[in-house]
């Protein structure tokens, strides 16, 4: 803050006293607003970072589990084909008694194979557990139910709203700090000019700007 302005106000007149008090108040206001701005700014930044990370988490969840789910559905569908083919084969061969023995044997083989293939499809399509040797994060992503992704999306939206709120608070604190800077300049002018009509104008203006700054800073807390 303006050390010279304080030094300049060496005296007992009300003008110098008010000047000294306002200089001190401006210093205090600046520190308060700087703290408010730093806090709001950091909270905004953190919220934006979290929103970005959660976006990536949503992509990771949908992409990875989507691929695994597609594979699971695909192999389960494929596993019923031999049985269906066998049934169709039997039906078709009923019209040709010469082939019925062969076709029946093939159909029986296909029916027996389907049971085993279905079991293999279930095993291969199941999301891997922690006993697979996979790291905890991969297991968690692949086993995460799709419903939880909507919760992640909600949290991401909440972080974006938080960023917006603290961003507004930070902007108001910055503007209030600008007003303090203007008040400091006016106080400096008041100190240089001294006790005169012009000096009083500068002093009163500085006081008014400081009050405005305090009000604007307080409004930031209401956000």
């Amino acid at each position, binding site marked *: *803050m303006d*050390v010279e302005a*304080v*030094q300049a*106000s*060496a*005296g*007992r007149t009300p003008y*110098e006293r008010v*000047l*000294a*008090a306002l200089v001190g*108040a401006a*210093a*205090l206001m600046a*520190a*308060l607003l*700087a*703290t408010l701005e*730093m806090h709001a700014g*950091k909270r905004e*930044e*953190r919220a934006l*970072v979290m929103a*970005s*990370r959660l976006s*990536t988490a949503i*992509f*990771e969840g949908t*992409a*990875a589990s989507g*691929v*695994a789910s597609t*594979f699971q559905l*695909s*192999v389960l569908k*494929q596993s019923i084909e031999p049985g269906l083919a066998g049934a169709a084969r039997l039906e078709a061969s009923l019209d040709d008694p010469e082939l019925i*023995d*062969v076709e029946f044997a*093939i159909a*029986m*083989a296909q029916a*027996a*194979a389907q049971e*085993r*293939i279905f*079991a*293999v499809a279930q*095993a*291969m399509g199941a999301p*891997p557990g922690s006993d*697979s*040797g*996979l790291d905890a*994060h*991969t297991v968690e*992503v692949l086993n995460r139910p799709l419903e939880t992704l909507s919760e992640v999306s909600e949290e991401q939206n909440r972080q974006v709203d938080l960023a917006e709120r603290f961003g507004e608070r930070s902007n108001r604190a910055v503007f209030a700090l600008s007003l303090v800077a203007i008040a400091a300049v006016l106080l400096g002018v008041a*100190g240089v000019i*001294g*006790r005169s009509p012009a000096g009083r104008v500068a002093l009163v203006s500085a006081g008014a700007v400081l009050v405005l700054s305090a009000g604007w800073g307080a409004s930031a807390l209401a956000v």
Partner: protein
Amino acid sequence: MGQGGTEPIPAAGSEPGGHGVAVLLAAAAVVAAFLGARASLVSSAASGDWQHAVRQETKRAAALVEDVRFVYSDEASAAFLVAESEILAEEYRRQAEALSGTARAALVIEARVQEALAAAVGGNFEIVTDPSYRTAEGGFDVGARLAAVRAAYPDLVAIDPDEPMDAADAAARRAVLGVGATLPVAAAFLFGALAQGFPGRRRPLLSAGFAFLALGALAGVLIEAVA
């Protein structure tokens, strides 16, 4: 008396206690500047760590998605076809044992078709060629294969974005506290200014000012040491 009704500005330090005010104000300015600069550096470090956390999150996600895509879309799909063909071949041969003549020959041909299909589809996929991935049911252990693929790049698996995130959160807390430590220093400045404007109460005001200055400096030290 100066011109235009203005009061002359006395020389610096010309009043009793004036040096004390000057020292307090100057010291407050220096301490505030130091605390502010330190908080700024720490704040910058916090920002850097947060951005690092975002990069780590993206890197980890991309690596995971690509490994899952490779194993499930490329290898596991082919491995299932191999398992299906091998099981069908086994069952055809089992049924052929109970038959003779043309019927037996027909089933053996079906089995050989499935075996040829398995050999062609399996190709060079490691999940198929490496016997350690075989399961007792005739399938393949996709989870173990994915673990092996992931383990090929342990640095990517070990990525933990929460580490830089936690470091950034701690640094941000220190930065806010650091700026907050300028509050008692600003109070010291206020008392210094009041001491200049109210010379009758200069001594107690200066004492309070120096006390707050010490408090601000101590707060700055404690934040560095503890936070």
